[in-house]
């Protein structure tokens, strides 16, 4: 079984304390540990936020907010509830989604055609070696989903749509979309060997 996170992936990152240990040190005010943690999480944070917001300037601003929030609220991290990367990216995704929903009504922002055309958005290539490897794994597993599951999951995660918006966009019943999101993620979990 493959461990969650990029921690085990081959890559240029020098060996050092894991993200959980760093985050625990950060919670006690260790700025040097924060610098190391930054190196581990800033790429995924910026990439994810950019994927959702699609505006480079705004994305950097939100990524910065998220990273500062990691520093500020590090004491809330509970290692028994999940990995540090999951904790940070959950926060990053929530921020990005809040921002995209607050910016303006989605109907004004984008047409239905534009939303569908840009989906699936997962096959763009990252410059980072680790991210590229991770991208390949995730892409392979996304390929194991049904097209409908993949569509729903990527619209929700990478575009920040609520399940109600996904249902409206795809002209599907609400319950169907909810089930697809769950089934899609479960299949993805099993394919990636995620154990939480």
């Amino acid at each position, binding site marked *: 079984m493959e461990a969650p996170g990029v921690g085990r992936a081959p890559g240029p990152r020098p060996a050092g304390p894991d993200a959980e240990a760093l985050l625990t040190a950060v919670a006690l005010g260790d700025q040097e540990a924060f610098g190391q943690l930054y190196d581990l999480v800033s790429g995924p944070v910026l990439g994810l936020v950019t994927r959702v917001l699609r505006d480079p300037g705004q994305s950097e601003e939100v*990524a910065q907010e998220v990273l500062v929030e990691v520093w500020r609220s590090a004491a*809330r991290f509970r290692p028994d509830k999940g990995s540090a990367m999951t904790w940070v990216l*959950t926060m990053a*995704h929530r921020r990005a989604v809040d921002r995209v929903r607050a910016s303006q009504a989605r109907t004004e922002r984008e047409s239905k055609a534009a939303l569908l055309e840009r989906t699936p958005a997962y096959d763009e290539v*990252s410059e980072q070696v680790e991210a590229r490897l991770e991208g390949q794994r995730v892409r392979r597993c996304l390929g194991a989903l049904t097209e409908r599951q993949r569509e729903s999951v990527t619209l929700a995660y990478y575009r920040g749509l609520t399940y*109600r918006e996904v249902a409206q966009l795809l002209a599907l019943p609400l319950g169907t979309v909810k089930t697809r999101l769950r089934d899609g993620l479960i299949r993805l979990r099993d394919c990636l060997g995620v154990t939480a």
Partner: protein
Amino acid sequence: MNDADLHTATGAYVLNALPEEERIRFEHHLRDCAACRQEVAELSATAARLGQAVAAVPPPELKDRVLHHIATVRQEPPPVSGDRFSGRVRRRSLPRLALAACLAAAVAFGGVAVWQHQEAREARSAAQQQAAELAAVLAAPDARVTTGKLSDGGSGTVVVSRAQNRAAFVASGLADPPGDKVYQLWFNDGGRMRAAGTFHPARGATATLLDGDLGKASGMGVTVEPAGGSRQPTTRPVALMDFPART
């Protein structure tokens, strides 16, 4: 949403795809449903993989900006204990380091309050005044601290200074009260609740000085009340905490 619907909302929940109202309802459900909690943990980790898969290379100046910024941002206080049992409150006095961090956090909360009331001068000076009083309670040499989980998943910290005859309550991760309701604080005078002001949780954490003197209070409580507060609690407390023992 009925119960069956709730169990299937795990996917939408971890994707942040539930509308606000449904998210709150689902989070209530999570407290009572171990199966959903487990699934949410696993699917959150799965969703995070979707995030890692699109990592970008941040510009070097972003790191400079972030490191520069955090040097001026006070952190939330570290948890007092590993207590994870809902409704149970553990008690102890904080080690010196944690108390210092707690004090630092109080100043930062004051900063947040000040910032939020930027538009209103009056509110700003009130916030500054409260921040100062709050800092005084936290800085008191006899300050004692109790932390516990709140019934809705957040955590609460009570700081008591008997020398100053005041108490403060720091809420973290508290959900917004429903509708136009507010949270109300109470002194517990041996079973009789004495009103001690209301507050609305900021996103993140909120520190509030309890109105009035400590007096004979042996503890404090928090309830959800209509805007403006009530004379007596009208709902079940989200928190009921004993003050730390005298030492």
